């Protein structure tokens, strides 16, 4: 997986952000255009491409959700390639009901829902952290499937939170 490689890392879902930042700065200096001012055109071009890859890699890997999506995408669990049959019916029922409730709620109820959704998201994040550790320990696709499910749920909760904020700002 290129993003990890360019930063000199093995694919991992749990990363030390301080270490990641250090690696990013060190590689950025290595690839800085000033150092290639006198280099042949092809080498300059190569450094430029690598530095653009490095920026994408850092932006993606420093966010746990984006990092996990990247690993999933490269392991055959791309979010865009799921059909609705891959999404459990209970999750859809739950999200549908939550959406309905939000539509009919008054302001205090919406505020309460917002608090509840944030709590749900925090619970998902905690479980994600556990699964990340599990995958780092033994890279099994069963774990990735579980992470896929958690990230789907998280995406729905994020949308609900977005709707809560839209309602509250009106």
């Amino acid at each position, binding site marked *: 997986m290129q993003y990890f490689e360019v930063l000199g890392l093995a694919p991992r879902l749990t990363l030390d952000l301080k270490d990641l930042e250090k690696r990013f700065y060190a590689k950025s200096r290595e690839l800085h255009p000033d150092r290639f001012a006198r280099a042949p055109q092809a080498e300059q071009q190569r450094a430029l491409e690598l530095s653009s890859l490095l920026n994408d890699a850092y932006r993606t890997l420093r966010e746990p959700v984006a990092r996990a999506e990247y690993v999933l995408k490269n392991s055959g669990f791309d*979010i*865009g390639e*799921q*059909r*609705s*049959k891959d*999404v459990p*019916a209970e*999750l*859809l*029922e739950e*999200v*549908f009901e939550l*959406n*309905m409730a939000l539509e009919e709620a008054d302001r205090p109820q919406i505020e309460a829902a917002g608090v509840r959704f944030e709590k749900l998201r925090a619970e998902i994040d905690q479980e994600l952290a556990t699964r990340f550790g599990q995958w780092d320990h033994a890279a099994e696709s069963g774990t990735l499937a579980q992470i896929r499910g958690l*990230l*789907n749920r998280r*995406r*729905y909760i*994020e*949308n609900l939170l977005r709707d809560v904020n839209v309602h509250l700002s009106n």
Partner: protein
Amino acid sequence: MAYSDKVVDHYNNPRNVGSMDKADPNVGTGMVGAPECGDVMKLQIKVNPATHIIEDAKFKTFGCGSAIASSSLATEWLKGKAVDEALEIKNTDIVNELALPPVKIHCSVLAEDAIKAAISDYKAKAITETAVTA
């Protein structure tokens, strides 16, 4: 991105929004979703058991304008069709009718999935019903 006039029309005046009794043996319910955009779509059909004609269709979609328009259009098309005819509705028909851009094609796929899910729910119920009566 600009929505076509037809999408805007369905979005502003959605047809057949609502729900029917899930427990009614003549009602088929399809609930589908796309995590990528966070959409949830519920589509229901009410079938006349004697004629196998879809007499009513309702939907409720939480999602973008294209998802709402796709499901709204689907309910319009479903009404008056025989169940097996309804199975022939393809997502590409919806794409063409609504002039959906490539990034919104998945919304039409979702609507097609919802139609199929509602019909298979109805058929599963019909079989159980027959078994009980027999």
